[in-house]
């Protein structure tokens, strides 16, 4: 389009408004969407137009969609949480107990000789076969990550629950054995579960006293192997 080759200034050409109104062609829309993602001022202009033009939609007749649409939506989201392990409501129910645990963990960080962590009631029968750690936001005590130790395979299953990192920061998981330095377990995804090998020497009893913590780090993780960001979540394994 010649309009894009010789762009007019935003004053002459209200591009954000044209995008929101819907008159741009496919190539121009793609370019506008790229600018929304990369230019905060343009993104604000788009938001302004969305706020001010969308009330027109009140004049569009509502049409009830067929029930099959909701059935499809629910069938697509249900597999995301097929078991108790990533059932958020179940974990939410444990928040009170986990809060006390997280508080205890923070004390442990400060004082090497701390009381043993309060046991958390097992949420489901599998807890006897697999230990669970709730890694909570230290400020709100909301669960951010659930770590499940699978004894059969010696793996940790990490299930992010409600984890967000600041823009441009990665989540890095650390294990801090009692009285020792933090050991990086690597950068972890914030939206998808991940399995990692449980760290050597920390199986069985060692896991109960070690603290798991998530910090925000530069992309790819802390460059020197020592945490540089803030602690976004922390927690311990509970005894079954």
């Amino acid at each position, binding site marked *: 389009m010649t309009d894009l080759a010789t762009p007019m200034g935003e004053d002459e050409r209200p591009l954000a408004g044209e995008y929101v*109104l*819907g008159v741009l*062609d496919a190539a121009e829309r793609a370019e506008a969407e790229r600018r929304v993602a990369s230019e905060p001022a343009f993104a604000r202009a788009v938001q302004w137009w969305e*706020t001010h033009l969308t009330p*027109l939609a009140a004049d569009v007749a509502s049409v*009830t969609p067929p029930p099959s649409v909701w059935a499809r*939506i629910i069938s697509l*989201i249900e597999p995301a949480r097929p078991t108790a392990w990533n059932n958020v409501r179940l974990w939410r129910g444990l928040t009170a107990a986990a809060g006390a645990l997280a508080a205890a963990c923070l004390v442990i960080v400060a004082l090497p000789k701390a009381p043993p962590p309060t046991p958390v009631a097992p949420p489901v029968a599998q807890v006897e076969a697999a230990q669970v750690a709730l890694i909570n936001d230290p400020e709100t005590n909301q669960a951010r990550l659930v770590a499940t130790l699978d004894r059969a395979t010696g793996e940790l299953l990490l299930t992010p629950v409600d984890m967000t990192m600041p823009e441009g920061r990665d989540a890095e998981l650390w294990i801090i054995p009692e009285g020792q330095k933090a050991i990086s377990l690597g950068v972890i995804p914030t*939206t998808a579960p991940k399995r990692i090998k449980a760290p050597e020497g920390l199986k069985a009893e060692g896991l109960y006293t070690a603290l798991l913590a998530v910090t925000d780090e530069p992309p790819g993780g802390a460059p020197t192997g020592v945490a540089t960001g803030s602690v976004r979540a922390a927690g311990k394994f509970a005894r079954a």
Partner: protein
Amino acid sequence: MDADTSRALLSRAIARVANRDNDALKYVYRHTSAKLFGVCLRILNDREEAEDVLQDVYLTVWNKADRFDPEKASPITWLVAMARNRSIDRIRARGGRVMAGVDEAEALPDTAPLASTVVETDEERLRLNGCIDQLDPKHAGAVRTAFFEGLTYDALAQSLGVPLGTMKSWIRRSLISLRACLEA
């Protein structure tokens, strides 16, 4: 229920969706899907495609609810804008609907009953309509048709029977006038 209350309830439900609460998604769907389906159908003019886009919109809500900022946007604006964008992207992908009904070009937008729980406040609507009414009637018609149908400049020009350059100038001048009027 007044507009402020329904807006607050909807915002809270979206916040719960961010915590993977599918009952909250169901609440959002129950209160907004008819409006969003109407918006999609109006642009796509094809039930099957509108159903696909609607599904896509709520799956996006499920996955990206944490991006919704109630300080910056009203929940229904966020949802309708998403439904419009997905629908417009879809018709652009199928090559545009160039002959979008010459007959409907001059037709006025629907004035069907509003979904009482989700619409913007009357104040915002009245203000926008007041500003649109200050435009040249032909320009106002073009703006409304563009919004409801999601037509490109090209399709809009053909549909309303004016040269492309004229249509661009109508819409751009209208947008600049609207911005001044809405900011006043």
